[in-house]
Every structure is written in structure tokens, then in C-alpha cells.
């Protein structure tokens, strides 16, 4: 009898070996998290390609990508805030007010566009960090702080604007951002540099693992990512070149995605964002300065929103009341949040990655672009986008229920 009891422990230890092969459900909940969005995006493309002959033309795909850039960048900034389990409802207002600020410095004060851009981005980052400071010191939820701040910034935006309610930026130099394309050989040089950086990162990680005596799966850790990355990015460059080259705006978005991806996956700060978002008490006990991490996340969201605002101003050749989505953030705020969530970022913290910003923005851009081509009115677009948001989150929940896996 006594033997039976003492034997029980080792036996049950053996009974629970680490599952070497993961179930499809678990994969969906972890590594293949992006799969439903990708499938959805491809389905949308097939649908619109059937509906419209021009949808898959290089010209239209270039446009689609350009249309998605502003929302995509906003979404990338929001990702940092959502990761730490907060929300920033002032990003659209930051986008607007910093763009107007930049325009004022250029038009009224004759500042160089470079300096004005730097001021706008710094202002965005400072505004973001201030709302985080208010939140952590006073203990007001970020939802409330940024809702109020957003309205206040909308007011400030109207105050900064001249009586004509618009600053034109034609001829200021800012419009060149949206009008610059990288064509021909230059575009392939850019592609090669990007791919080389990505490959180097994968290679250094693999060599380090090998040197440390860990197993390295060269196919799945090195060859596959580089080949898939090369094909996807190369295909994109090919399509863009068939129209007018890589728009500078798209390149800026791509660089930002790359930098953010590196920060989130490789750096200590990136890891702490995930830790704080999942269990801030555990993070605090581990010695992580939770307040500082949150402040940096909001500063990034603010600065990134300012960049999006500058690009939007460049595309529309000016700023005005409409900048930043208009009062209350309008569709810009809602679409930015929707893109982030559709892409797979959790509103409850600690989950999401950079491809969420890209995929989410592409879904929203595709719906807008495709329905436009079909001649469907704006109201239908809002309905479709809204339903897609609910659908995306529902699919997440269904996977969670069906597999019993919490989705991370």
C-alpha cells in the first residue's frame, strides 16, 4: 500500500510528457494566430476581384496599399498601448493637432519642413507620455484621460488653425512625401537591403542558438522565413513597380513595421510590454518599472500618430478641421482601433504583434477600396467594416472555446 502511494508520483510524472506535436487548435491559438485574418483577407480579394476587373490591377493595388498606410501606422502605434492593457482614444486628435502644428510652423513661421516634422513628432510623443503620467499618478483610467484629452486637443486644433480653417501645404516640401516613389533599380536595392537585414537577424539568432548548443531547425527557423519574406516582399515590389514604384509612404510604413517588429520580438522593452499587459503585478514584483513601460508605450503611440498625421497632411496637401478625422476622431479613430483588433491584438492586454497592424489596415483598406470600385456608398462600407470587426473578435473567441486554449 505504502509502495503504491510512493510510486504514484513518478508514474504521474511520466504520464504527462511535453506534447511534442501540437494540435492544430493550439497552433491556431499561438503560432498560426494570424491565419484567420489572412484567410479573410484573401477571401475579400477574391470577392472583389470577381466583382471588379480593375481590383487586381497594379494601379489599384498600389492605391489600396497607399490608402491603408495612415490607418496602418495609427494601428501600429495603438498596438503598443493595447499590449500594456490600456487604450488611447486621443491618437486621432494627436494625429490632427500635431499635423496642424507642423503646418503652422511651416506656413506662419517659415520653419523648415524637417524641423516642423521633428517638432510634430516630439509633440505627439510628449502628449502621449503626459496622458500616461496622469493615468499612473492620479489613477484615472486611460479610457477617461484620453477621451477627455482627445476632445481638448480637437479644441486646440481649431484654435491653432487660421480663420480660413485650413493651411495649404502645396509647395511646402511636405507634399513631396506623398508624391515620391522609388522606382526601378532603386526599388530593388531597397528590397535587398530590407531582406538582408531580416536575414541577418534570423541568421544571428540561429547561430547564437547553435553556438549555445541548442537545436536549430534550419528549414523552419532560417530558410522558410527568409524565402517566404523574399517572395511576399518581392511580389509587392513587383506589383508596385508595374504602376509607379514604391511610394515613399509605403516604404515609411514598412520600415516602421520592421523596427516595431524587432523591438517587440527581440528587445527587453518589447518583452516587458507583453509582461505588463498580461500581469502587471507579476511584472512589478519582477522589478519592472510598470509606470515607465506604460509611459513609453503611450509616447510611442503619440509619436507614431503624429507621423501618420504628417503623412495624411502630405496626401491631402494641407491640414484643416478634418485633420485627424475631425472632431471626436471620427472614422480615423474608430478605423484605427478596428484595424488593430481585426489584426488580432487583444483589447485585454498582452497579445498581438506587428503584422496585426498591417493585416488589419489591409482589411479595412480593402473593404474601402473594393466597395468604392463597386460603386457602393459610404454607409455600406461602415456597415461592412463594423461587422468585420465583430466577426474577427468572434472568431478569436470561437477558437478559444473550441480548443480550450487561451489565445495568446
Amino acid at each position, binding site marked *: 500500500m505504502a509502495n503504491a502511494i510512493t510510486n*504514484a*508520483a513518478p508514474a*504521474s*510524472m511520466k504520464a*504527462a*510528457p*511535453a*506534447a511534442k506535436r501540437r494540435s492544430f487548435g*493550439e497552433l491556431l*491559438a*499561438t503560432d498560426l494566430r494570424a491565419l484567420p485574418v489572412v484567410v479573410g483577407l484573401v477571401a475579400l480579394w477574391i470577392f472583389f476581384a470577381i466583382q471588379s476587373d480593375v481590383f487586381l490591377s497594379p494601379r489599384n493595388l498600389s492605391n489600396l496599399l497607399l490608402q491603408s498606410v495612415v490607418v496602418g501606422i495609427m494601428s501600429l502605434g495603438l498596438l503598443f498601448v493595447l499590449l500594456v492593457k490600456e487604450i488611447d482614444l486621443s491618437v486621432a486628435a494627436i494625429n490632427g493637432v500635431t499635423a496642424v502644428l507642423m503646418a503652422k510652423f511651416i506656413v506662419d513661421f517659415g520653419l523648415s519642413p524637417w524641423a516642423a516634422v521633428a517638432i510634430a513628432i516630439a509633440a505627439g510623443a510628449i502628449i502621449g507620455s503626459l496622458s500616461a503620467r496622469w493615468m499612473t499618478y492620479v489613477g484615472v483610467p486611460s479610457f477617461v484621460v484620453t477621451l477627455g484629452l482627445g476632445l481638448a486637443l480637437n479644441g486646440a486644433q481649431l484654435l491653432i488653425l487660421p480663420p480660413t480653417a485650413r493651411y495649404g501645404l502645396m509647395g511646402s516640401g511636405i507634399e513631396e512625401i506623398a508624391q515620391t516613389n522609388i522606382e526601378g533599380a532603386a526599388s530593388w536595392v531597397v528590397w535587398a537591403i530590407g531582406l538582408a537585414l531580416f536575414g541577418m537577424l534570423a541568421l544571428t*539568432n540561429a547561430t*547564437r*542558438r547553435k*553556438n*549555445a*548548443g*541548442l537545436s536549430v531547425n534550419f528549414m523552419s527557423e532560417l530558410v522558410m522565413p527568409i524565402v517566404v519574406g523574399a517572395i511576399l516582399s518581392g511580389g509587392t515590389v513587383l506589383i508596385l513597380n508595374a504602376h509607379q514604384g514604391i511610394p515613399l509612404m509605403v516604404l515609411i510604413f514598412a520600415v516602421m513595421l520592421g*523596427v516595431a517588429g*524587432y*523591438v517587440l520580438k*527581440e*528587445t*527587453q*522593452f*518589447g*518583452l516587458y510590454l*507583453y*509582461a505588463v*499587459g*498580461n*500581469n502587471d*503585478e*507579476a*511584472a512589478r*514584483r*519582477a*522589478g*519592472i518599472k510598470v509606470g515607465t513601460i506604460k509611459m513609453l508605450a503611450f509616447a510611442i503611440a503619440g509619436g507614431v500618430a503624429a507621423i501618420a498625421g504628417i503623412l495624411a497632411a502630405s496626401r491631402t496637401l494641407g491640414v484643416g478641421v478634418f485633420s485627424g478625422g475631425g472632431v471626436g476622431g471620427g472614422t480615423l479613430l474608430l478605423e484605427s482601433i478596428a484595424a488593430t483588433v481585426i489584426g488580432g491584438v487583444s483589447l485585454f492586454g*498582452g*497579445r498581438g504583434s506587428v503584422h496585426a497592424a498591417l493585416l488589419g489596415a489591409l482589411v479595412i483598406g480593402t473593404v474601402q477600396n473594393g466597395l468604392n470600385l463597386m460603386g457602393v456608398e459610404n454607409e455600406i462600407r461602415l456597415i461592412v467594416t463594423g461587422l468585420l470587426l465583430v466577426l474577427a473578435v468572434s472568431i478569436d473567441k470561437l477558437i478559444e472555446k473550441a480548443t480550450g*486554449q*487561451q489565445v*495568446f
Partner: protein
Amino acid sequence: MSVSNNPGGSSQKRGVPLISMRNIQKSFGSVHALRGASVDVHAGEIVALVGDNGAGKSTLVKVMAGVHGFDSGDYEIDGVPAKINNPSDATAYGIQTVYQDLSLCNNLDAVQNLFLGREMTGSGWFGRRIKRAECEVRAREVMTRMRLGNLSLTRPVGAMSGGQRQNIAIARSILWTPKVVILDEPTAALSHSAAEQVSSLIRSLADEGLGIVIVSHDIHHFVVNSTDRIEVMRLGANAASFRSKDVTGEQVVNAMVGGNEGVNLAG
């Protein structure tokens, strides 16, 4: 009895204890939480702190771990008065705590949880880059030493069972080779077989020479069967001290609720 002059201490002469707390007093405003509590922890020994809610056992381990300061009394580590003002001071002295909630981040894998806040890093382009490979090797060593080599290091710990999560939390506490590990209710949320695994793990740590302090309500199974010494606390002071192998759960519970005033069977 000579032992009554040495409340909270082991009667066996085994040299200087790793931790020696004597007559610790601690008040929170008007609440007198500790009224002269004492406890010794020796190398290789598993000490259980038991008591009813409000008896002061949690406060005592929090003082030990540097979460709370204390008003008066002596706190010595290796026979030298300890200067502990916060949890990281305690960590520097080699005292690690595994909280009841485990303090794990469910979205991170075992390696990331093990090193959380203490990652090995090198310089990078945007902030410090984590040396993942080095961390993983070190994590694997610790897990193998704990006979947990078959636990996945790359799955999010949220996808693991309660026992596996408890084991990871313990592995994390011993990653930096502490002298003393404090475990708060290590078996509270576990099934019987998972609790057995955890207690055999704790025993193997003690066999390696660590001092273990356990706060537990699981008197009848875990405390009586898997520890060496039981300190019963009541109303902020030591009520009784037992050698675990000489006592039944009934006797311990009796001491907890005040049935056996001043009994000391440890001698």
C-alpha cells in the same frame, strides 16, 4: 523545557541557521499583527508556518521577504543582522519568494517567465536585445536539475496545468541559486497527484541544501507528510512547534485553534 526558551527554533544543533528571526513585532496602525514571532530556518530543512487566518504567518514571511519592515526584534541571516528594506534586498541575501498567485505571465513562455526582470541582454539597435539562446540554455539546466526536463520551454505558461505552472514558479525562484525559498500555499490549487509532484520537488531542493519556508493550510496531507518542522502561529506569536514526523494533523489543528496551549513537541 529548554526548548521553550528557543521558540520557533529547531532543537537540533546544526550550526548557525540560514535565517533566524527573534521576537519580531509589527503593527499596521492599530493592528498588532506580530507580537514577538520567531522562526529559524536551517539549510536542508523544510519549515511549515501554519495558523488560522490573521495568525500572522503571512506577515512574518512578508517581513522575511522584505515586503514589510518590522518594528522590533532581530532578523539575522547566517548569524549576521540583516539589513532588508525591500524585496530586492531580500533577493540579494538569497531569499526568494514564490507567491500563491505564482506571479507568472501567462502569455510568456517558461524561459521568459524564469528570467522576467533579470534577462541576460546585450546591446541592440533599439534598446537592449535579449540573449534568448543563453537564457534558454540556463533555463534548460535548471529544469533538468529539477527533473522537469520534459516541460516545454516555448509554450505560453497559460496553456500549462496548475502543477506545471507551480513547478515553473519554483524553478524561477531557484534560478539564481538562493539560500532560502519561501513558498506561499504551494499546493492550494493543485490536484492530489500534482501536489505530490510539487512536494517531491520541494524535498529535492531541500536535499540540495536550501532552506524552505512554506505557508500552507493543507495541514493533513501536505504539511504533516512533506515538511520537517511545523511552527504554529496564533495571534501574531508562536503557539507551538512540532517535528512533522511526530505529529498528526489533529494535533496541529488543535494547536492552531488554541486547544493545546504552549505544547512543544519539537524537543
